[in-house]
Structure formats: C-alpha cells, structure tokens
C-alpha cells in the first residue's frame, strides 16, 4: 500500500526518533511512504496566531502537492501538522470562493498516522508482525490535543476518550492503564514563551500517570513528547521531586515489539533514558 507522507519540520529535528521509528514500522507493515516533494512548514501555532489566511495557504500548498502526487491518503505523524492540514482541507472545500488561488478538490485526505495504522491498515496486520510482545510494561496513552480537536475538523468521533492508541498498545502486549489526561494539553509552544505554565501542566501529567501506576507515558505528538521528555529534569528540579518517567512514541514501541534492530538508535535520542526500564523488563 502506498501513501503520501508529510513528515513536517519537527520530524526532521527535535522529533527525529519519531520519524525514524515511524518509517521503519511502516516498512514492516508494507506501507510505502512517499514523502511529498518540496513540502513547506504547516505554519504551526504561530501562523494562525499571526494571520488566518496565511495559515490556510501554507497548509494548502502541501495539499496541492499531495493531490498532484495522485495517492488518496496523506499520512501525517505530527499532531500539529495534521490539524493545520485538516483546517486547510476544511476551509478549501467549504469556502472555495475565499480561496480561489488553490485548486485542491478533495481527492486526497489528510490522516493522522496512528489512526491510519489502526483503522486503514488494521490491528490484525500489526499483530501478525509482532515478534516480541511487550509484556509487563505499564503505560498510559497521551494522544495530543490536535489529533482530536476540534472534531468538526479532525473528524474524530471519540475525542474525549480516544481508543486507538490504547487498542494498539494492548495488541503489542503493553498493560495500558486508564487515566483521565489522555487528551489534556501540555502547553505546546508556550514552552518557549511561558515555560512556567508548561512546567505546571506537565507536572500534573506526571503525577496523574504515576497515580495510575504507569511506568512510562506513550505520546503521539512531537510537541507533547518534547515537553514531557526534554523538560523532565528541570521540572524535577523546580518541584523538588525526582521524576524518572520515560516518554515513548507509540511507533517506537511498535518497532520494539516487531523486533526492529534500529530500536536502540531511537531510544538513544531521548533525554530521559528509557533503556533502564526496558532492560528491567527484559525488552532490550
């Protein structure tokens, strides 16, 4: 199966391990990822804060490139890129008169990678590729706001209590724990403008994950992963409590369960070392 693929800026930089693991997992699942030719940044939070039309146009250029590529799915791993592309899709199809410079007709649709794997590829195909079930690993799923909301844009039905990552990780053998913060905000780009707010929000997430009995948090968004992984040391220092909670991307755990030999490369890019926990569980 071939799909168009939009990695986005984060996956070339701060979320490199998300890109590396997603690409390996897709290869194992026989999903051919065709990267969009000469794609541009989706604009993220800054473009829509600055200029509504610019934000739509930036994502619209990528949609046009995808439509020219001729495949029906545009798969996007980053939550923010996914939502911005969906907003452009919605605007161009529902208000075509305001966006006459773009020829997008709706032949290609943006899909979040997690939902694509769970709904289009199917968990049966994932289960067939599992070589080493991730038994005894206790995790909570942290989906990321922008894969879910707003539902009229994302098309998500279970936006208050999503299930796809829960089902996927359970299929991998992970003990998935219930917690109320699946789609709560980590503060996103406020990390650069008001880090004090982000530290409060993320600390709340750590505490609830620990209360649920989790040994790690599994994320589906590069910004969430960044705020939870890269800032753990400073949050520990600020609140005087030593947190040691590895943060994974769901694709990394898929790769691990599927026996990929590149796992240690991705895991080596984390700031909170996940190898201790995985060694303890005999998973690496």
């Amino acid at each position, binding site marked *: 199966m071939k799909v168009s693929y939009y990695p986005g800026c984060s996956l*070339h*930089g701060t979320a490199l391990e998300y890109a590396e693991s997603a690409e390996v997992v897709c290869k194992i699942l026989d999903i051919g990822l065709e990267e969009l030719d000469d794609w541009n940044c989706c604009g*993220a939070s*800054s473009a829509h804060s600055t200029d509504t039309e610019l934000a739509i146009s930036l994502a619209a250029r990528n949609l046009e490139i995808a439509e020219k590529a001729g495949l029906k799915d545009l798969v996007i791993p980053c939550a923010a890129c996914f939502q911005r592309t969906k907003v452009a899709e919605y605007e161009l199809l529902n208000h075509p008169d305001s966006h006459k410079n773009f020829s997008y007709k709706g032949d290609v649709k943006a899909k979040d990678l997690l939902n694509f794997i769970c709904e289009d590829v199917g968990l049966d195909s994932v289960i067939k590729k599992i070589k080493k079930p991730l038994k005894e690993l206790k995790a909570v799923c942290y989906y990321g*706001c922008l894969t879910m909301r707003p539902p009229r844009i994302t098309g998500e039905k279970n*936006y208050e209590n999503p299930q796809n990552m829960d089902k996927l990780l359970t299929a991998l053998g992970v003990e998935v724990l219930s917690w109320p913060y699946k789609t*709560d905000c980590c503060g996103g*780009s*406020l990390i650069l*403008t008001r880090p004090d707010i982000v530290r409060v929000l993320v600390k709340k997430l750590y505490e609830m994950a620990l209360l649920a009995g989790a040994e790690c948090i599994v994320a589906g968004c590069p910004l969430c992963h960044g705020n939870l992984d890269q800032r753990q040391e400073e949050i520990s220092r600020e609140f005087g409590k030593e947190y040691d909670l590895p943060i994974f991307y769901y694709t990394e755990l898929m790769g691990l369960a599927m026996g990929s030999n590149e796992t240690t490369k991705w895991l080596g890019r984390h700031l909170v070392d996940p190898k201790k926990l995985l060694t303890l569980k005999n998973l690496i």
Partner: protein
Amino acid sequence: MATQELNKLEKDSHLPPSITPSNTKFSELVMKESGENINLCYQCQKCSAGCPISFAMDILPHHIIRMVQLGLEEKVLQSKTIWLCSACETCGTRCPNDIDIAKVNDTLKQKAEKSGLSLGEKNAPLFHSAFVSSIKKRGRVYELGMIQEYTLKCGDFAEKFKAGDFLRDAKLGLKMFIRRKLKLYPQKIKGVNEVKKLFKQT
C-alpha cells in the same frame, strides 16, 4: 433613547457596561474576521471550566467572549489571556453553541498586534513573529535560527542570565545537538518563492 444619550448615561452612572448600538461595532468585526457567532454565547462557562491554562489567565475565556459582546475592546486586546491560549481547542470542542473560542482568540491576537496598544504578554508575539519569519526565509522552520532570532527579540538577557535560564537552555541545546535533534544548518525548499508569495497574498 438616542445612542448618544445612552452612552452618556452609561458613562455618568457607573452602571455595568451594556450592549448599545455604539459598541456592537467591535463584536461585529471580531465575528466577521473569526467567522464565529459569539452572540450565541449564554455564559455557561464550560470553556473556562475545561481550560487547562485558565489558572494563569487574567481574564477567563467566557469573560473574554462577554467583553467582546460588550465592546470592551481595549481591555480584551491588552489581556494576557489571548496570548496564553495554547489553541488546544478544548473550549471550542465543548461549547454547546459551537463557538470556536481559540479561533476568536486568534482574531483578537491579530487585532491586538495591529492596534498599537501595549500587549498583555511580551514574549508570545515575538515568538510567533520569529517563527513565521523563519518559514518565510526558507519554507521550513530552522529551529536553531528561529530560537536565536526570538532570543534576540526578547532582549531580556540580564534577567535570564541571572535566573540561570541561559545556562539551562544552553545545556539542553547541547544535549539535543548531540542526539541530532538540533541541526546546525537550515533546510531551504526549492519553492521558497512560492511560499513567499503566500505571504504577499495575505
């Protein structure tokens, strides 16, 4: 009663503000620019109850909507709230009247920037401007360059140095660089001029 008289009465009597023909202009503009019908808001406060960042805001989200209805333009445009909103969309998702409040906040941020009023938050507008300028230059965001530009724009070096923020950020940056998560050189797309044109259109 004529509009002028109403306004005078309001001014003189210390009555709480009310909706009069003269102050619907602002709310009409905000509605037109955001595409959201804020007249539907009946102050159920669901947006503020679910907002993860409300603890840090100076005006709660449902108050922002009410204040726009009342035409309290300056207060709204100078608020911290509009810049602290992370656009997580919890409010708009739960609004019984389907008002996308984050989208209204976007419109208010844009209007605040154009108004010339002093802004409620210093760093957020500088960050957005550095981020967008990075896209304009190369078509993609070059993280290291964007952070450099943003830091220079913020200019609060002494304060940050004293608080140890510089050292902390430098250490984090180094760790990210070693892990290949921060690139030393930017990527530039071939169609950078096409992207620049998108800036001109808007």
